[in-house]
């Protein structure tokens, strides 16, 4: 002992001696730190103590091993074996932070310069009767997993106690054709720390569709058995579930006993500051055993974050650990579920908004406080989840416009990488008019389509309204490697000219004051005999109605297949022509008077529709000059503005006609 202490003194004096870092715990976090330090090279001499016999493995993926989704080798954490780094399979029995040494289970004393607790946690065993019966398992370590794998073959009915992340994964992993699995959870929703009622319902449905019975809001009172074998689980409400295997997944408790014995300050975990120091000098703690800012993380990613910070610290850096984003991902199940932040059980405040986007196959919820993201839940394939996570990590705000866009269109960012067709999934609809998917287009490309017209004739994509042509062109140029030039729309010049006429007429309507009745009956004013005449007023009025109705046919042409006579461009030209005609008849009907009240709304609506229509038509006329999704979006959004503006028109028209004849 004295010798070693003396040696220690000698070695500490020489400045080129590597720093001796001792890491207690060979779990994924401890190994991450060891590897990070080992990569630096000669500066550190790292010793890792692991109380497990196995090669260090990634505990977080044990459930996948249990499910048979990966092999044992897939879990291995390779230790960068250098002369500066070694792994010792022994437990540590005591620590002396004053004299800076530890004693392992073989009684050997190891001096250290820096000591790191990465002791992790162990499964929490609730104090209910019967937990020690045989057939009751925990699920934490590789050894547990091996036991369960053996058990999985024979069991007929497994009850998993605890519906947290691990419980759900375990239930799925234990689920086989011959055995029944029941999942008992105290809270009224699964994964209650991470997800809300809606996501829980979806998860529950998925689990039950796989044959797993889910008991929510039910605590376990006792495990009952005969001859030291578990036979049933009794719930608090008296329900009894027959079983032969019980797996306890009730959370974990940090391993802090050694630290406590060494008079290091502990609470729920080993208390650390922002630089991950414990109360003892040169002693650190990371991973599930540590408690930072009153928070003990039961997940793996905060441990990795801490390992990274500590690696920097030990190298003399000034990194600080400011807490981790609780982030989780449900593995095992074919049910993509991700969460980050605090999407549930957050502190209520009047500024908190929950934005929910959902359909049958997916669910996304973002919780924001005055634009600041608190957390999110994503179920199914969510294009926006990763972007939201990015935003959250960078502490950027999610503006109300993005939220509105998310709520309405399911997308907060209309333009981004996903706009590249190369990133799209096969069943994505490219041509909305004819319901052509990317898959059919790719098939057409494989069978040798090289031009837009080939694609059109083989898939009928892009030949109706043509608004997806820029996308088709983009797909074509990506597949052929050549720049595809769009053909201009037929009649685009005439369309442009006519829409300019329509726009001009609409502007006249708006800017020129209403016509007056002439001062003499022998010399009537311009158009007076039309707009100021009861008969002609009706003729022009009903003409206007007819022209408007015919204009609306274009919308049907897009949606009804039997109407697809003639190229859409010609229909569009007719539509634009009707627009111009409409503007002209409107002037005849009103004598340039914009009217009052309801009539004014109607006239202004007409003018808005005409102006937006003319603008849309102009955009379309020039659209062949641009390729790609952005162009399509510009074209689409103008078109949508035109359509949205048209929506009130029929109703205002009806109201106008009713009032004219009612009064």
């Amino acid at each position, binding site marked *: 002992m004295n010798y070693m202490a003396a040696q220690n003194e000698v070695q500490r004096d020489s400045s080129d001696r590597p720093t001796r870092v001792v890491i207690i715990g060979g779990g994924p976090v401890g190994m991450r730190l060891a590897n990070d330090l080992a990569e630096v090279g000669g500066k550190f001499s790292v010793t890792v103590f692991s109380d497990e016999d196995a090669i260090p493995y990634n505990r977080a993926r044990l459930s996948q091993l249990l499910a048979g989704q990966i092999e044992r080798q897939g879990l291995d954490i390779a230790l960068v074996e250098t002369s500066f780094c070694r792994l010792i399979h022994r437990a540590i029995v005591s620590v002396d932070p004053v004299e800076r040494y530890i004693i392992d289970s073989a009684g050997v004393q190891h001096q250290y310069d820096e000591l790191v607790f990465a002791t992790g946690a162990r499964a929490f065993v609730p104090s209910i009767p019967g937990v020690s019966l045989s057939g009751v398992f925990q699920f934490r370590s590789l050894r547990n997993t091996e036991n369960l794998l053996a058990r999985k073959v024979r069991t007929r009915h497994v009850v998993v106690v605890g519906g947290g992340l691990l419980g759900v994964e375990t239930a799925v992993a234990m689920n086989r054709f011959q055995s029944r699995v029941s999942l008992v959870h105290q809270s009224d929703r699964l994964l209650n720390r991470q997800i809300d009622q809606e996501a829980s319902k979806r998860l529950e449905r998925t689990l039950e569709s796989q044959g797993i019975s889910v008991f929510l809001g039910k605590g376990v009172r006792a495990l009952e058995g005969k001859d030291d074998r578990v036979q049933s689980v009794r719930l608090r409400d008296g329900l009894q579930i027959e079983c032969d295997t019980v797996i306890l997944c009730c959370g974990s408790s940090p391993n802090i006993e050694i630290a406590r014995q060494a008079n290091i300050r502990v609470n729920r975990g080993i208390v650390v500051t922002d630089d991950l120091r414990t109360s003892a000098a040169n002693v650190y703690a990371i991973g599930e055993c540590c408690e930072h800012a009153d928070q003990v993380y039961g997940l793996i990613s905060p441990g990795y974050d801490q390992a990274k910070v500590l690696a920097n610290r030990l190298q003399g850096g000034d990194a600080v650990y400011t807490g981790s984003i609780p982030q989780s991902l449900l593995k095992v199940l074919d049910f993509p579920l991700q969460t980050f932040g605090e999407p549930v059980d957050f502190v209520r405040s009047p500024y908190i908004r929950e934005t929910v986007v959902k359909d049958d196959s997916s669910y996304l919820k973002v919780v924001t406080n005055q634009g600041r993201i608190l957390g999110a839940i994503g179920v199914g394939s969510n294009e926006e989840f990763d972007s939201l996570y990015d935003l959250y990590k960078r502490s950027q705000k999610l503006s109300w416009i993005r939220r509105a866009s998310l709520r*309405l269109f*399911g997308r907060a960012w209309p333009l981004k990488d996903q706009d590249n067709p190369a990133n799209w999934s096969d069943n994505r609809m490219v041509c909305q008019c004819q319901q052509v998917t990317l898959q059919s287009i790719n098939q057409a490309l494989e069978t040798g389509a090289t031009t837009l017209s080939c694609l059109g004739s083989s898939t009928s994509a892009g030949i109706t309204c043509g608004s997806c042509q820029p996308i088709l062109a983009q797909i074509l140029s990506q597949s052929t490697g050549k720049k595809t030039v769009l053909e201009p729309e037929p009649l685009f010049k005439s369309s442009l000219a006519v829409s300019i006429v329509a726009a001009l007429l609409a502007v006249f309507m708006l800017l020129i004051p209403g016509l007056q*009745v002439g*001062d003499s*009956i022998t010399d009537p004013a311009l158009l007076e005999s039309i707009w100021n005449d009861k008969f002609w007023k009706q003729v022009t009025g009903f003409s206007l109605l007819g022209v408007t109705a015919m204009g609306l046919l274009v919308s049907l042409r897009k949606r009804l297949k039997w109407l697809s006579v003639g190229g859409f461009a010609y229909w569009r030209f007719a539509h634009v022509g009707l627009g111009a005609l409409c503007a002209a008849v409107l002037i005849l009907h009103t004598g340039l008077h914009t009217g009052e009240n309801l*009539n004014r709304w109607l006239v202004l609506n007409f003018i808005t529709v005409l102006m937006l229509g003319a603008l849309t038509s102009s955009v379309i006329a020039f659209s062949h000059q641009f390729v790609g999704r952005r162009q399509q979006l510009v074209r689409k959004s103008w078109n949508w503005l035109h359509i949205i503006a048209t*929506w009130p028109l029929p109703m205002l028209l009806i*109201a106008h006609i009713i009032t004219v004849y*009612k009064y």
Partner: protein
Amino acid sequence: MRFSALKVWLVFSLIMLSGLGYLLFAAPSKESLLIGQATHGHHQIELACEACHTTSFGGPEILQNACAGCHQQELDAAHDSHPRKKFTDPRNAELAERLDATKCVTCHAEHQLEQTRDMGVTVAEDVCFHCHEAVGEHRESHEGLSFDTCATSGCHNFHDNRALYESFLVKNSGKPWVDYKAVLPLANSARFLSAKGSSGTYEKNDHQDYAQIKLDWFESSHAGAAVTCVDCHQAAGDAWVEQPNVRACETCHADETYGFVSGKHGMRLAPAIKEQLEPMSPEQARLDFKDSAQDHQLTCASCHDPHKPDLQKAAVDSCLGCHADQHSLAYQTSPHARLWQAELDQVAPENTGVTCASCHMPTIEHKQIVDKETRLRKVSIEHNQSATLRPNEKMIRPVCMQCHSLEFSIDALADEALILNNFNGKPSKHVESVDWALKRETR
């Protein structure tokens, strides 16, 4: 797509439909359906749609009946020179083809304020041309006259030509411009009213608060006619009404009330208006009024304090309490006002003063004999102050000619500047109608 497009559109449409449905059928105010402001004659009642549009989805007859409902009596009294029957006569079918004068709205279209001319006319002023194109051939004097001068010069009026018959012009020509000894007739209609069903008692609410009112009442003509508190305040039944409305006055003063609700002062209270409208107030009117009077409401009691009816106050002070246009403001310095002041000062005989009411609420001598012994005829006050103003030539016979010559009256009423300064001076315009009539007569 994460949202159902159909649902969004459906909700959007439903919201708009329900909004429109509300505006069309359920909204308390139909203002949003108003297609344009009504003319000065009807703007007070423009939101009482059913007053004119009596039935939904009716034909043009509905509107024609509505016009006639209020105006036919007046047209008949004025011996309408273009009555409807003239145009429904098959012999005039050709004329009716040119101008469908069987319907009021042919010339008086409503809700088109920007095209409305004087007298609520919405056609060109030379409308007479349609039928009277050849008038110059028969009348030398009219040769070469443009057709927009027919009405504007104070010669012709499409409906009411009583003041302008040729024989009338000749008969009344050549008199001095003013009769200095003229005395206006004295209204006597109220004197012959009896208190209908008077209880003869005023004791019902004999409270200290009413002491002054009781004193006033004792001196009033109501007391003289034995009209007591309950006759007005409990006219409708047992319940005491703190402020009796027009209907209470109407019980006795039926003619006056009819006049009141026929003119712009009381038209909102006319029985033809089914909607419950508030009485008219200056803030809703289109003339100029005193700021302090903007929120006043017009009922009988606005001009006549019911407890001490004072005809002198009602003749000028009540009017000028609200009206503040140029013509009204100029009254106090006008020759008419000087006559009134002399009468008030008792240096001139009774009824020689000329008040606002003298012209706008003229005393009308009726044929009806109210006292058989003295053969006294009924003389009442026309409470429709608008009656003599559409157009103002209607004032010549009952008002101006009480004191002035015909020629002077015609000229004065044609001179807008003179009207604005309230007849302070002599007319600078001259209408040749009397000259032409005399010339034709002497030939």
